């Protein structure tokens, strides 16, 4: 059993395997108090492991994070499956269907844009702030590449990636924003949790600019995306 801090919320992890403890080492807290605690039941572990196909210690970590993500919407915090890159203290999120090249594009940013680094490559958390802004947070759950750090930054935009013949970026339509973003949210659990997530989604869709990037695997794709998102972030802030 140990306590971690995610987005400033102390959470007690009632683990039975050391895998998750090791995974969470950068997020350990010395606090004694906690907002809530999570544990995985035998039944959940068995289901998650597909009857032993996946190791139990890994599955415990998945189950614990799932529970955390069902409770955090009560704190205006939610999981959005995406890759978040930090540049000059601003977070930019990329979302795509699996296999489209989220990791490849993330790696391109880090290689092409001076000072770019990965905040979280897979399962970052986002907090909807009272003033309407959004903050992105690193988490111990950062994908198979293990890209991530325990930092946070204001979210400057969300970009949906698509594979294309050439590089082009445009603003996403309202229709696209809702459909595409819903795919990346957890949106499961109890009625209370889902309702809270939908209320957060309702605020999120107008909180940051959204883009659709059609791209090839090239440094030009990363440069185009960064240039556009950085410029529009500034315009967006001016308009709001």
């Amino acid at each position, binding site marked *: 059993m140990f306590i971690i801090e995610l987005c400033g919320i102390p959470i007690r992890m009632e683990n039975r395997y050391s895998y998750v403890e090791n995974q969470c080492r950068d997020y350990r807290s010395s606090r004694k108090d906690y907002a809530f605690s999570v544990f995985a039941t035998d039944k959940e572990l068995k289901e998650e492991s597909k009857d032993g196909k996946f190791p139990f210690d890994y599955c415990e970590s998945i189950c614990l994070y799932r529970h955390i993500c069902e409770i955090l919407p009560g704190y205006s915090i939610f999981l959005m499956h995406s890759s978040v890159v930090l540049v000059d203290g601003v977070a930019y999120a990329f979302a795509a269907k699996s296999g489209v090249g989220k990791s490849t594009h993330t790696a391109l940013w880090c290689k092409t844009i001076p000072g770019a680094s990965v905040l979280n490559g897979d399962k970052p958390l986002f907090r909807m702030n009272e003033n309407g802004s959004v903050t992105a947070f690193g988490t111990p759950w950062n994908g198979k590449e293990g890209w991530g750090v325990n930092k946070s930054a204001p979210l400057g935009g969300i970009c949906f990636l698509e594979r294309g013949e050439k590089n082009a970026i445009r603003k996403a339509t*309202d229709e696209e*924003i809702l*459909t595409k973003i819903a795919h990346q949210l957890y949106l499961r659990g109890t009625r209370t949790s889902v309702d809270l997530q*939908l209320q957060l989604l309702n605020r999120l869709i107008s909180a940051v600019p959204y883009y659709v990037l059609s791209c090839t695997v090239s440094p030009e794709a990363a440069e185009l995306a960064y240039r556009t998102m950085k410029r529009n972030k500034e315009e967006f802030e001016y308009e709001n």
Partner: protein
Amino acid sequence: MRIDKDFTIQKVGVSFVAVPVGETSKNFHGMIRLNETGAFLWNKMKEADQTEDSLVAVLLEEYDVDEATARADVQKLVKALKDGKVL
């Protein structure tokens, strides 16, 4: 026709969305987008058993539409919900 599955309906931006909750979310994945009349009809099917005619009737009562349009809307929604295995 009655919707007996556990969904929540919320307004997000300009649309309404229906998302499965609790046990329903284990067998039903994804989100259904509805327009305002779709959400209205959904709630009527949630409250009580309905027929195509009864849905057309409530639509005519609530909205300023002609019967042909109302019936077309009802049929379209019912088909979508049947295709999506909600009904």
